């Protein structure tokens, strides 16, 4: 990587593990020792994940765009207007289709879209039960994909007993159409 970020992170990790950590250990400060180890651990995690950050953002936005479009279709079929969701979903797709979209633009549209779907979902307790069930099924189906990429993202942190059951980040991203943009 030409910007040498990975190199820099590696140097930080080496410094913590070889110089700072042993020095802190000699002080007997258990809290400091614990946090030094966690610092190195987090930097190692960052080293493994930093190059995938934008792809993950795009992948999640793509899933929320699918979710928004399906909910929009259900609302429309029930003659329920959803102007904000319609605009947010369309804007999100435009952003995904634009290879020059900045990270900030991706972030901002993602925030708007997730908020509007969430607001609609929260309101469903007062909605017609049949429609509610259909929308919640859409939410759950696409949430599974989002949860899975986050499990994959955190896989190096070793949270799950059955590590083989956790999907690989690269595999998820490879199959995602968003990577082609």
């Amino acid at each position, binding site marked *: 990587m030409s910007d040498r970020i990975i190199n820099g992170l590696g140097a930080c990790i080496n410094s913590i593990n070889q110089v700072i950590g042993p020095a802190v250990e000699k002080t007997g400060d258990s*809290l400091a020792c614990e*946090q030094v180890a*966690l610092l190195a651990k987090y930097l190692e995690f960052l080293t493994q994940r930093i190059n995938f950050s934008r792809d993950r953002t795009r992948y999640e936005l793509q899933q929320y765009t699918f979710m928004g479009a399906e909910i929009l279709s259900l609302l429309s079929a029930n003659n329920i207007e959803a102007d904000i969701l319609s605009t947010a979903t369309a804007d999100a797709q435009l952003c995904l289709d634009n290879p020059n979209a900045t990270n900030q633009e991706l972030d901002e549209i993602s925030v708007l879209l*997730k908020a509007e779907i969430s607001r609609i979902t929260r*309101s469903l307790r007062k909605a017609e039960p049949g429609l509610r069930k259909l929308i919640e099924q859409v939410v759950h189906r696409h*949430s599974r994909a989002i949860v899975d990429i986050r499990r994959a993202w955190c896989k190096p942190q070793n*949270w799950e*007993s059955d590590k083989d059951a956790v999907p690989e980040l690269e595999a998820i991203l490879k199959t995602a159409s968003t990577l082609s943009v």
Partner: protein
Amino acid sequence: MTDVKFKQSSVLPSPDIFYPAEAEGAKQWRDAPADADVQAIRNIYPVEDEFDLMLTRKMQRRALGSYKMPTLEEMSGYVHAFLNAHVKGEFSVKDECWLTGGASKIQFGFTLDWIDPERGRSTDQLVVRMEPAESLNATSRRREFEIIRAIADVVPVPRSYWMDPEGQWFPEPAIVYGFITGRAKPSMDRSRVSGIGTQFSPQLRAELGPQFTRHLAAIHTYDWRNADLGSFNKPKEGTTQASLWQLNRARRVWEEDRGEDMPLVESVANWLEDNMPVLDHASILHGDYRAGNFLFNEDEGKITGWLDWERCYIGDRHRDLAWATSRLFGSLAEDGKTFLVSGLVPEQQFFDDYQRFSGLDIDPKRLHYFRVLNTYQSMVGPIASTYRVVRLGKSHQDIVLVLVEGAAYPNAHDLLNILEERY
């Protein structure tokens, strides 16, 4: 927070409250909430009185800036000032040090040489457990102090000495309790974090497993009605009050802390409100009953003390049962198939023994409900609270909380699977 960017959908009814999350780089209202917004959330989501105090205090102090951890010398000064006010006669303090463990509270150890009114001249190892400015859970030291005192004859717990519930002597609310010796996980265990997927040897399982189950039964059948538990609300049996308080607590935290919106969380909250079970028997609940929260003597195979009572409340036993049997806290036996509750007891045996020890039955439908509630709560803290605490630099363990977020997604995965089960 009055500038909500979203107009209401024309036909779908509006939710009672909804403050959208804001972009990472934006000025976020949750970083410095107005009193009116704090009050609006309180009104929509009523919780137990003590938790209301804790959560409101959190929000009122949120804009005060990041946390500055006291130095060892400063903490020593607080300890001496506190002891001057609470210990009669001469005393001396030594062996002061920071302690590790957990992901939320500050723990400071010291040895106190003093004249105990009950035992005379004594030398005790003590622990100060104190809030940072904000943490993973806004919980009550008063409540922790009360329950440890109340339940000391029921299960092994540290001796609770004193409390500073308002932070009069310490910079934040604190309790002082006795140090208990023991291990949080086996010496040979290679699990990731204490209490997550702990692996006990067959021998330790045989020794500790029955104690694990028996202690839970004892806690749940303890007659709390005459105990000094002034900071606990007592839910009415035959109502859904206890479940609603807990659901509201999680919903309130989500509304107060989150940095992103998640439709899944909203959908689950709806389900939880629709399916609240009626309380049949009000029990004391530990709230975080699992491996990692008890210490044990590895040579004797004996549990020496139950810690971390901060999530304790009076409610439905199925909440603890569902928590204890969470996939995250358990592990598989050598056959690679048998799920061991907290790495200790096969699940069905755990349920059978519990019912035998307690005389209380286990209702699969209510167990299912609390599995959903627990996983919901286990998403709210790691996703919402860790974000806010770290963003504002509010704790002494921000680096721990950064990593804790990762615990949310196995829970979310379980949640989606649990919701597919039919009851």
